[in-house]
């Protein structure tokens, strides 16, 4: 079975976001594999080990994103593809188009993406890519079984559970709870360097950057307003209740 994993390198979730000159500063920031994509990598490796085949990683990103690919190769993926071309960096629309172009002439049975990336959090790449490729999709899965051509997924629906049956080829997106990702082993890290890494740009893909340009325009990036400390009421309990109702009406304007 040929499994494709769509992977994004993101900020470490413990990093503090700093905005400088209207952009998020990458100074001294540690980058990691997007945690949801890590579930995707783990599931792909497990399925490959069960039924055979190959795991190919695909990312769109700058040079530094190769580190995330190497880490996933060290976990056990077989090969990696990176589209490293600034003209092809954009919003979800652009990225899904670029990924579709990479995949359209490749053989794949199963595509696994993360439910969303922890940086922009759009959750659109998986669904958009499935539409581009015209294959079925199951999002936010917490379990997957592949039996021949038949695929059975358990899907997290806002805390409820849906069981979905479909067939290959299919695109699924990984939700927390799907698995417990392994660490890259040290021998895996040693072997990762020797695994194939394909580097592509717009001309390799025969893709006109203008045709996939982001329709989204970012006007401003800002941090959420600092939260004020809460107000603690005091005095007689009956008076406190009265004051609270007053405040909810007039100040908070929620009732």
């Amino acid at each position, binding site marked *: 079975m040929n499994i494709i994993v769509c992977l994004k390198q993101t900020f470490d979730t413990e990093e503090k976001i700093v905005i400088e000159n209207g952009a998020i500063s990458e100074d001294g920031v540690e980058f990691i594999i997007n945690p949801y994509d890590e579930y995707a990598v783990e599931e792909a490796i497990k399925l490959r080990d069960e039924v055979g085949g190959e795991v190919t990683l695909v990312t769109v990103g700058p040079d530094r994103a190769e*580190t995330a690919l190497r880490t996933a190769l*060290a976990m056990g993926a077989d090969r990696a593809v990176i589209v490293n071309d600034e003209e092809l960096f954009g919003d979800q629309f652009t990225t899904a188009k670029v990924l579709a172009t990479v995949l359209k002439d490749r053989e794949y049975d199963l595509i696994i993406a993360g439910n969303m990336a922890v940086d922009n959090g759009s959750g659109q790449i998986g669904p958009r890519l499935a539409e581009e490729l015209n294959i079925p999709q199951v999002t936010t899965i917490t379990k997957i079984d592949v039996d021949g051509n038949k695929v059975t997924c358990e899907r997290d629906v806002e805390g409820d559970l849906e069981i979905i049956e479909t067939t290959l080829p299919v695109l699924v997106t990984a939700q927390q709870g799907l698995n417990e990702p392994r660490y890259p082993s*040290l*021998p895996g890290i040693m072997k990762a360097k020797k695994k194939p890494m394909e580097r592509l740009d717009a001309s390799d893909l025969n893709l006109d950057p203008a045709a996939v340009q982001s329709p989204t325009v970012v006007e401003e990036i800002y941090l959420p307003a600092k939260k004020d400390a809460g107000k603690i009421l005091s005095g007689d309990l009956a008076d406190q209740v009265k004051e609270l109702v007053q405040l909810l009406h007039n100040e908070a304007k929620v009732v």
Partner: protein
Amino acid sequence: MDLYLTEEQEMMRRMVRDFAREEIAPLVESMEETDEFPLALIRKMGEYGLMGIPTPEEWGGTEADFLSYIIAIHEISKVSPAVGVILSVHTSLGINPILYFGNFEQKKKYLPRLAGGHYIGAFALTEPNAGSDAAKLRTTAVKQGDNYILNGSKIFITNAGAADIFITFAITDKDKGTKGISAFIVEKDTPGFSIGKAEKKMGLHGSSTCELIFENAEVPVDNLLGEEGMGFTIAMANLDVGRIGIAAQALGIAEGALEHAIAYSKERKQFGKPISAQQAIGFKLADMATQTEAARLLVYRAATLRNEGLNCSMEASMAKRFSTDNAMKVTTEAIQVFGGYGYSREYPVERYFRDAKVTQIYEGTNQIQRLVISKYLLVDKKNSRELKCNGLQTI
């Protein structure tokens, strides 16, 4: 010199850091309380290739470079210095003597098991009357048919309670001084060999340190390491590697204690502001960080020399001496930052303090390190890098 790690070394550092944080940190408290050897953890470390980092792949190891191994000890010791020393002794003193001096059969039999973490290695040199003066061994080995018969005892043997093999040193010819010492691979189930009482140590709880007893222990002649009389050479051959390992462990201790001290100083409020805003504390932290940075440079400098196959005996001793003394100072100051809470077992800094002390003692006391360094000052510095001998044969 700057510390630029290769992409692989950086990946290993992150992997070990994450592993230490998620797999080792949750065990620290119970290891501290029960003093039990973390066998399941060591097996897991074996699965991830951590128990034979510099060991060649053909012998079941990871075959990463020496620097990667030092990075691993450093990162693990930030979280658990006890696990750091288990790893250091297992690799530097358990695996390496077999790798460098073992014959093909011995390597085939023991290395894959050791490098995979299925076996744990220990190093049995120290005796009640032979510490720094390692040549004054009393344990004897007499050849009798297919066996050597060993008699005597060893003390302070790290990993002893959990080890499967012990690189053991004994006298085969008492008239030849250091040239009469031989090394043996002693398996734990050897008839006549037993593990004696476990030391109740000040720190490093969970790393098992015991006495060993040899009463007519029957060690097969096949388990002689190298040739008769090579024991002292074998014992001294890995000193640099072992010392850099302990220097890295002490570096981890200092950094671990410093991180806790910084975090606490920002939380703890006195006189209406965090104590970190008091210059007395801010300056203390600045000094701790500066000294630790100096230790880091010495440790990685020695490790880089060793990585390139260059003589590093003097630098290894300097790194060991400085980094371990620094760990003692920094952990002492970390307790001061915590005040009364630092003296309580509720907080981790007193543990780092107790763990730090032994690093000034084992793997060559810091007095011995100064002896090594001063000896190097007396040889032509220009030529010292090419010296094949490590200048220690007479110590």
